[in-house]
């Protein structure tokens, strides 16, 4: 009797028949929605990428072999967008991670009664992307922007800079906005990691005469390694796909200075109506992301 129930609950190999049916029933609704919105369109995008499909020229709709992919090799903007995305993503993740680490270490050191500060610091992370975009567009504005005002007052710059209108400055502004938005996420993850370091290890390091720096390098960092890897991989993927903040701040400009792949695909598809070509760029993009995802999933499996 007991054995039978144990089997149904744990569903070992013997009880597989029944539980497969039940599992299918429970999972089906979720998979149906995801299949409709994610999997089917993805396959369709792959299919579209082999067609010459422009909404503005419906009579030219035709199978185009690898023409879209060939065009990509010669398309300068595609390569600019690729370069921008890689630079933007790594700069954002690296600076965000460092800042988050610094915040987490500082918070770990202050007394427990100030712990509610952590809640305040987390707020930027839930602020909607579109708000972050508009807020930083306003703060980086050349005339009324508070950032120019502060920098001039502090004698760091000698005249107001047109942050969002100069090609080399706009990327800095966009990265600053993302770091503001994302640093709290790293702070949260790293704080959780710091709490998991056993007290006796830290105690032992102190008793053995390790300096703060040595303790950080040889005790804290090794314990945090897993979390640092996972959260930065997660955020690399996130930022590869980031849209709202850049879209509202610069729309990808000036010229192509902040055009990332996502912005480029959006413009090609929904402003130029080159659905076939935009799909091809998208497919290449998914392929690149899949490689990153495999690294991510592998490191998850290793760690958990």
């Amino acid at each position, binding site marked *: 009797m007991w054995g039978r129930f*144990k089997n149904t*609950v744990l569903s070992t190999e013997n009880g597989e028949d029944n539980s497969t049916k039940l599992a299918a029933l*429970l999972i089906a609704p979720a998979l149906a929605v995801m299949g409709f919105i994610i999997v089917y369109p993805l396959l369709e995008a792959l299919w579209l990428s082999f067609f010459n499909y422009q909404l503005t020229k419906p009579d030219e709709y035709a199978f185009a072999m690898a023409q879209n992919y060939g065009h990509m090799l010669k398309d300068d903007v595609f390569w600019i967008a690729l370069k921008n995305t890689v630079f933007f993503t790594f700069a954002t993740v690296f600076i965000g991670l460092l800042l988050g680490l610094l915040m987490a270490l500082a918070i770990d050191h202050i007394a427990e009664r100030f712990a509610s500060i952590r809640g305040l610091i987390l707020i*930027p992370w839930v602020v909607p992307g579109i708000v972050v975009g*508009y*807020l930083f567009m306003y703060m980086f504005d050349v005339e009324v922007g508070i950032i120019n005002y502060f920098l001039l007052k502090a004698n760091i710059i000698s005249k107001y800079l047109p942050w969002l209108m100069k090609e080399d400055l706009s990327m800095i502004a966009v990265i600053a906005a993302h770091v503001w938005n994302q640093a709290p996420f790293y702070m949260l993850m790293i704080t959780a990691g710091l709490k998991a370091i056993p007290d006796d290890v830290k105690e032992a390091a102190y008793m053995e005469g390790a300096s703060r720096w040595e303790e950080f390098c040889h005790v804290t960092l090794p314990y945090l390694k897993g*979390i640092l890897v996972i959260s930065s991989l997660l955020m690399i*993927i996130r930022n590869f796909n980031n849209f709202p903040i850049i879209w509202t701040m610069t729309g990808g400009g000036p010229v192509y200075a902040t055009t990332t792949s996502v912005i480029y*695909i959006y413009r090609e*598809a929904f402003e130029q109506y080159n659905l076939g070509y935009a799909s091809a760029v998208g497919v290449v993009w998914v392929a690149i992301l899949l490689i990153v995802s495999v690294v991510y999933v592998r490191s998850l499996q290793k760690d958990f």
Partner: protein
Amino acid sequence: MIRRGFSLLWSTFIWVIMIFTLLWTLFPMYWMLSTSLKDNLEVFNVNPSLWPNAPTLASYVNLGEGLTPIPTFFMNSVITSVFTVVLAVSLAVLAGYALSRLRFRFRKTILMGVLVTQMFPLVVLLIPLYLVYVKAHLLNSYIGLILAFTSFTLPFGIWMLKGFIDSVPVEIEEAAMVDGCSRLQSMRLMVFPLIVPGIVATGVFAFLDAWNNLLFPLVLVNDVLMKTLPPGMILAFGGEFKHDWSGMMAASCLVSIPVIIVFIVLQRYLVDGLTKGAVKG
């Protein structure tokens, strides 16, 4: 335990970092609020004032009276977000339960597949999805938006709830089933009450995802009266109205306030949910 002492220099250093962190974090939000309370003349003042000389709610009042129906956008956002929460949580609980408790073929494949879908760039899917929505008459509909939001928040929800259900001891369910509960009864009566924090966390994430999403409504809605707040803000402040800074910041506050309130009230669940998996490693 024996702790490292804190020298005065060291605590000063820590507090300097803390104060810098707080300024960096809170100043932009303070500035958003402050600007939204200024009148448009004061915004263009060469020497910006930290707090408005004559605080006024005019910019907020104007949001309701302008050419773009911001109150309608707000209602659309509320409706789509709330239903996304309900749908996403229900689907994720069922799937999470199956993936945690039942052993079946393709279990691992489904788990990993679900995770990988989260990495697909939304914008790539939007091209075919747009074509599908045209055919299925889902453009400009709440259902279309809710389905789209739900599918993108599901992967995270499924993984999170699976994690929470994993931590409920199997013995509790075994006892219930010996006492005559069916599997679904034991799920409802024994497991659900114990994973309330996980359900709340999943719901909050679904809400944030839906409320903040710009791309889906930007492409899948072209009827002005069906827009949610993010594309609505682009409509209101893109182009020629770009220099109505006070109005723009008032709208920004309006969009942010609901998420910030939800976050502050339910923060504990959110933080626990998110970091639970991470610290195991």
